[in-house]
């Protein structure tokens, strides 16, 4: 089941011609990252920090590729300047598949500290935000990716522990 959801997510990215993906790991996203790394259609560039990853994605977009970033919600704290002055200012599309740590089922208390700010920060940045909580929510992913490249904006997809089936 877990493998199916990882494959399903990456299938949707590939079907939408996303071919450049940068990742900063999270335990919840390990399966998706493995799947991305295994796909020939996707150039996978692990990055050391999420703002660096957004820079890579901006370059890939201007080079004619459709990019995406995979990261943890703590990265919102790291990337606000990059989102505002690069991705949004130059009007570039960027699907952001984000593990929403600090929600129900979270064992690490400190993760809650950024979880409580995550949606407020995304709202303040006027970033369209989708929250995957139930397994069926993945059905919207295809449309969300299409929407991102239609409007040339960063778009957040928050995926919580309930969606991933706990850890």
């Amino acid at each position, binding site marked *: 089941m877990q493998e199916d959801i990882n494959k399903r997510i990456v299938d949707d990215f590939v079907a939408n011609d996303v071919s450049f993906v940068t990742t900063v790991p999270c335990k919840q996203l390990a399966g998706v990252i493995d799947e991305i790394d295994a796909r020939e259609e996707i150039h996978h560039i692990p990055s050391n920090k999420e703002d660096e990853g957004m820079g890579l994605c901006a370059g890939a977009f*201007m080079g004619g590729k459709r990019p995406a970033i995979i990261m943890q919600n703590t990265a919102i704290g790291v990337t606000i300047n990059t989102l505002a002055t690069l991705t949004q200012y130059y009007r570039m599309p960027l699907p952001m598949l984000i593990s929403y740590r600090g929600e129900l089922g979270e064992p690490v208390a400190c993760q809650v500290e950024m979880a409580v700010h995550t949606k407020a920060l995304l709202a303040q940045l006027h970033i369209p935000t989708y929250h995957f909580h139930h397994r069926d929510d993945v059905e919207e992913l295809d449309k969300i990716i299409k929407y991102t490249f239609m409007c040339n904006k960063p778009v957040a997809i928050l995926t919580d522990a309930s969606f991933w089936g706990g850890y």
Partner: protein
Amino acid sequence: MIRSEILKEIAPILRDQLVVCNIGIPSQELHAIDDQPSNFYMLGTMGLASSIGLGLALSQPKPVISIDGDGSVLTNLGTLPTIANNPAGNFILLIIDNGSYGSTGDQPTYAGRKTSLAKVAEACGCETVVECAAEDTGRVLQEALDSGEMTIIVCKCESGNAKMPVITMDPVVIRDRFMKAVSA
């Protein structure tokens, strides 16, 4: 030599290449010296010129030169391992190392003191790293282009800025004309 003198000297080489230029005075200087649609000027986001340039180089075949500064590379030091481990033969990172944060008042950087960015790049795994004097930048840059190998150039020069106007071009215009130059 200061940065603007180097940019003037290498402008004929840059003109035919895709250039991603660092935030602040470096972009203002390049824009004033030789504005080209094939120049991507960063108006914000300190530190990401090298990351944008690498992403661009990995995504299409034309040569890409990222013009960066020592302060900006120090801000995004994680870029050097990423560059080293994802080599693109069409990518040149030109670090104009004047040992100072030029756009903010020439405060000294650690690259102007004990830290060698060339040695850092080598330690990160970058295979072709050339440190050169300001006067040799044009020759070293042309050799890097001709080699077809990913090259990190650390050009040591004096601190100082030319007085140039702020870029008022809309960012979407900069991006649009740059993308047209990429796909031309």
